[in-house]
């Protein structure tokens, strides 16, 4: 697995996503993109859904990209990638293309959890070989911080504002990782921008698996979440270290937590690090904070049980092929 220095060397000459984009100060998205693409050794072609990344990195006539990159619309990135991958297979079959491409989709949580879910599901079911990376910043940030299916319960967004009769978003977030998993694709993982080595390792495994692979990467959004740009990494570390955002992978249906924070921080610290949850701490609704903490704890225990259940598989010859047994 490449370490940071190797990744840095690979990008020194020409990063796949360079500077000059207009993503906000402290935006987490470029960390996802650069780490993912530097971890792939073949030529890559990127399909990008509409969103912060697309708008900010390709303002005509400037492009921050130095790899083949295609954006068509918001909800169809997986479908576009299906077409690109099918074209690739057709061109290879008739000997019209020699390069061995890896295809990567980048889409935000809005373009993945919500409007792009149908296209994603169809592409996963058809089994196109690509790596789909959701950079998850828990809301429609490009359009001004509206709630998405990835926005957590209680978050204050511009469409779920807290107020006299509201404690922010009323619904829990959708578990997209498990929706994807239900397609029985070989590799599904959750990662975070605070743990780039973990992300890089997962990209290697994802791209070596046959068929589609999926990474749900927790990014961070200073204006949308309400924290100082300099704290981007610290805020996401809270999410991981509290168990709010477990770093895990599911290989051929077998679960494994890749980071075990010891001791786990309080989920309340994660909520407390962002202004979007400030109303949880004004003393009005103590029960809600407690219930959110209980939900996170129950989820962590559930994952720990699944990990325990599948430990033998990772030690078996099938699991050992992935080189992960302890």
């Amino acid at each position, binding site marked *: 697995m490449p370490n940071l220095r190797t990744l840095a060397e690979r990008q020194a000459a020409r990063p796949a996503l360079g500077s000059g984009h207009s993503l906000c100060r402290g935006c987490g998205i470029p960390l996802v993109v650069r780490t993912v693409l530097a971890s792939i050794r073949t030529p890559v072609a990127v399909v990008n859904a509409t969103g912060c990344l697309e708008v900010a990195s390709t303002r*005509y*006539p400037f492009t921050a990209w130095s790899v083949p990159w295609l954006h*068509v619309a918001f909800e169809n990135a997986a479908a*576009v990638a*299906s077409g690109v991958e099918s*074209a690739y297979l057709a061109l290879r079959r008739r000997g019209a293309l020699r390069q061995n491409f890896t295809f990567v989709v980048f889409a935000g949580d809005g373009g993945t959890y919500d409007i792009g879910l149908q296209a994603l599901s169809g592409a996963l079911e058809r089994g196109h070989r690509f790596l789909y990376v959701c950079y998850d910043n828990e809301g429609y940030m490009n359009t001004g911080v509206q709630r998405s299916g990835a926005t957590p319960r209680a978050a204050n967004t511009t469409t779920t504002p807290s107020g006299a009769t509201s404690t922010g978003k009323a619904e829990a977030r959708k578990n997209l990782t498990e929706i994807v998993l239900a397609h029985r694709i070989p590799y599904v993982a959750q990662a975070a921008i605070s743990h780039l080595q973990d992300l890089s390792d997962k990209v290697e495994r994802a791209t070596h698996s046959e068929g589609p692979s999926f990474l749900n990467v927790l990014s961070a959004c200073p204006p949308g979440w309400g924290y100082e740009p300099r704290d981007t990494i610290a805020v996401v570390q809270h999410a991981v270290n509290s168990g709010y955002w477990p770093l895990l992978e599911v290989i051929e249906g077998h679960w494994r937590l890749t980071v075990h924070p010891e001791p786990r921080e309080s989920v309340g610290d994660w909520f407390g690090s962002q202004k979007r949850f400030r109303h949880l701490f004004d003393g009005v609704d103590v029960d809600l904070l407690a219930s959110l903490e209980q939900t996170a704890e129950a989820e962590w225990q559930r994952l720990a049980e699944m990990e325990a259940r599948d430990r033998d598989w990772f030690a078996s010859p099938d699991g050992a092929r992935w080189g992960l047994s302890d």
Partner: protein
Amino acid sequence: MTSWFTDKPQDLRRFRVLTGGQAVAEALRQIDPDVFPVYPITPQTPIIEAFAQCVADGRSHARILTAESEHSAMSAAVGAALAGARAMTATASQGLAYMIEIVYLAASLRAPVVIAVGNRALSGPINIHGDHSDGMLARDSGVVQVYVTTAQEAYDWMVMGVRLAEHGEVLLPVMVGLDGFTLTHSAEPVEILADAAVQEFVGPYAYPYPLLSEVAGTYGAFAMPEHYFEIKRQQIAALERAEAVLPAITRSFAKLCGRQYAPLEGYCMEDAERAMVIMGSQRGTAQEAVDKLRERGQKVGVVTVRLFRPFPRRDLAEQLRAVQAIAVFDRASTPGSFPPLYLDTRAAVRTPRVDSVIYGLGGRDLTPDDIVAVFDRLKRPAVDADPIFYAGSDEIEQER
């Protein structure tokens, strides 16, 4: 120059009795695209079923990408075409409505995808029969639009459409519209060219700027007001060039089989005083009505428009130059205003009297009597209070 009649005697062995849908599928098999992303919808299904069987039988190399929606089918077609592979698809009605966002993007991204459309009414109420309202949704998308009048034309324009779409001066999607059921499901003798002749005619797919290359490109960038307008104009200019490059393609096709096509076609127009303009499968009905009136000594004619986008306005003006009154038959409506073919015709001619006729919505028959009634109407003073005549729905005014 000898005519094709003497030059190329028709070989009856090449004729097969095919529906329009089967004829399109046969063209697909011979063109043998790399990728065929598609989603089923009536009345397009005969096309994709027949083509899927060709692939299953090893008679085509295409990868059929069975998308989970038309939106994704068109998205995949754009991805494949820009990646560097020949991509084609087929749809109809609600399917075209669902993919329409990506049809616009296909045009702006200059993805030369040929799309067969079994033209069908749009919901609601839901209806599976023929009209042009689905095609009209794509009217302003920037794609080339052709409306054919027979199964033979459907076959021929699928083949020519590939050349037109992929022409270096064009690089745009081409939509070949064939009326639902009237053409998609009705059988007629269709001359099928030799496989090798079609392959040679369309040539290899050679998109000049493939995504999958060593030269990295950014496709589908974000354009602010200082660039969007010019980018749009460049796209508009490409569509207009389609009209200019078409004659070379139709001439080259005529050398193969003798059928020489034009953007539009006049019938009995040499001395016509009154004329109608129409698109699609009802050309035959129109000609029958014209024949009937000609027998009665009336100087009437019909112009059938095949190339609807870009609109051949100069050719149409030339056809209608000496006509005193025109009735434009639209198989689609523009609620609250006049329908599309009418507006285009009106803008192309200086004839004072141009009437609008809407016919055939949701598969309603158009009869020769309906058309005769419209020609009769053209002899009377214009009716300002009732400017659109709904043929086949309005009462026919009797005047003999």
